[in-house]
């Protein structure tokens, strides 16, 4: 694959920076930025204001984005796509929306690798309804252990929610197999996939996978901040109680101020003025991913990971660095330098090598239940990276004993 750096204006004035934090957010492509700017400059009207042409154009852009998204994940109809502010909003919308379905003693199954957005909403739901959140066992490669998963399913299981690719460790779950196991056991168990880490990296065909719901953010697929999606099978989605009530989703409010009627999907779940400029930007991010091709993206990122792993072995870095997930086939590296706190290393990499990585708990508060540490450094590669940058990274990792150089 050709060097894709030219698509990312981030490098225009700071080509020396090495961005290895695509898991937190991917860099933004020029077309996305331009599209948002163009909409704000040339239109900028409210898509609810359909009485005039500009407002109607804004509405049409939303429909275009919905249609493209539907095709992108192979949903059955555009109404199955709900625009939200991001993954967190999507999962909260879902968990809150399912409130009336969850009763005392019911069970929600998750894994310990979920980031906070795919744990807290379920914990809050379970607490408020007297249900239980249960965690499934993981294999040595941190994927869901199918056998213990089968054993944990019961007549009380109502929801299973898991990440397609985990946020910190990068383990890639077999969504199709897991969903089959669940649906074979009881087709009414709701399956939700948190696709935040995978949506811009691997193809996700919701119809083929037969999942009920899926959440993700646009900003992790080279797109705008403040936008995400909740996909749901139409009938299930239609059962969700809205999280927000307001303009755009109410059809009628009676004079008794008690009775009201709501719009149908998708508007029913999209109260308030949408982030229309981000939606316009998102059109470009989907087009970009389609242009490059998810298969090519996945292949290139795995090539970078393999190159990194080979260099780690070649330079014997495992002598002073603990790597937690070298064998995992996703472009995420989780590691700790022995005897040094992650923040000292992230600061060192930034200050001395212009390498941007994350340290700490990486929004996955239960990671300590899976690997023997609460905190670690995460480097995540993307299509904006190349092998020369990995060479510099290796060089930096060889020199971590100089981490205090940042202070003197």
């Amino acid at each position: 694959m050709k060097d894709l750096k030219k698509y990312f204006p981030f490098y225009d004035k700071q080509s020396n920076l090495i961005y290895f934090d695509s898991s937190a957010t991917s860099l933004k492509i020029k077309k996305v930025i331009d599209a948002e700017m163009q909409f704000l400059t040339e239109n900028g009207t409210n898509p609810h204001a359909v009485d005039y042409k500009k407002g109607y154009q804004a509405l049409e852009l939303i429909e275009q984005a919905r249609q493209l998204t539907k095709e992108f994940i192979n949903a059955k109809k555009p109404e199955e796509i709900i625009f939200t502010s991001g993954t967190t909003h999507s999962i909260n919308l879902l968990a809150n929306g399912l409130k009336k379905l969850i009763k005392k003693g019911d069970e929600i199954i998750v894994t310990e690798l979920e980031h906070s957005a795919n744990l807290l909403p379920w914990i809050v739901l379970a607490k408020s309804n007297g249900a239980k959140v249960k965690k499934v066992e993981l294999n040595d490669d941190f994927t869901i252990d199918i056998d213990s998963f089968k054993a944990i399913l019961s007549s009380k299981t109502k929801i299973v929610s898991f990440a397609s690719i985990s946020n910190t460790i990068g383990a890639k779950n077999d969504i199709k197999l897991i969903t089959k196991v669940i649906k074979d056991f009881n087709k009414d168990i709701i399956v939700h996939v948190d696709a935040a880490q995978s949506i811009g990296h691997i193809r996700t065909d919701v119809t083929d996978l037969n999942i009920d719901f899926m959440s993700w953010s646009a900003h992790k697929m080279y797109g705008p901040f403040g936008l995400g999606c909740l996909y749901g099978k139409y009938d299930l989605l239609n059962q969700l109680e809205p999280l927000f009530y307001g303009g755009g989703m109410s059809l009628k409010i009676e004079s008794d101020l008690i009775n009201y009627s709501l719009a149908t999907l998708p508007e029913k779940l999209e109260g308030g003025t949408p982030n229309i400029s981000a939606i316009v930007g998102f059109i470009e991010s989907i087009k970009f991913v389609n242009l490059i091709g998810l298969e090519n993206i996945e292949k290139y990122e795995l090539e970078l990971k393999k190159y990194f792993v080979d260099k780690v072995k070649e330079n014997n870095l495992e002598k002073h660095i603990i790597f937690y997930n070298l064998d995992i086939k996703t472009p995420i590296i989780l590691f700790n330098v022995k005897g040094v706190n992650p923040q000292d290393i992230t600061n060192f990499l930034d200050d001395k090598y212009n390498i941007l990585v994350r340290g700490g708990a990486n929004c996955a508060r239960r990671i300590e239940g899976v690997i023997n540490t609460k905190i670690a450094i995460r480097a995540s590669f993307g299509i904006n990276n190349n092998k020369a940058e990995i060479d510099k990274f290796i060089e930096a990792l060889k020199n971590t004993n100089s981490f205090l150089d940042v202070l003197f």
Partner: protein
Amino acid sequence: MIDINDDILLRKILMKHFTEPINKGLKNNKKAIIKDAKSQTCADEMQIEILIENDIFKEISFEGTACAVATSSADIFFELIINKSKSDVKKIINQYKIFLNTGEASKIELLDKLIVFKNINKQKNRILCANLAIDAINEIIE
């Protein structure tokens, strides 16, 4: 007085207090107060045990995991304020805060080994680390 320009010495001091902190390990004194110092922005967290008698800091110890800057600043600071009165500690903290933000202070001699953090002002994100335990003590004083 330590030479603020002797980087090799400063580095050694910092490293020593990071790798072999003298005040690490809680004493579990029933008369002491326990204060949690937890960073809002990173994973650093400490529990600090403080015994104050007649307005004097008599014992301070800590436990927890934190970066080199947070750990060594806590350890150096605790060593410095032991047997000092709240008002004296307040003066040190005031000078330290100015020093962290600018690299200078009018009464720099009050800071003793804390001058190892002379370059923190160039790394704004690390000021939080260098302040973690100190802010906890400051809250007690105030």
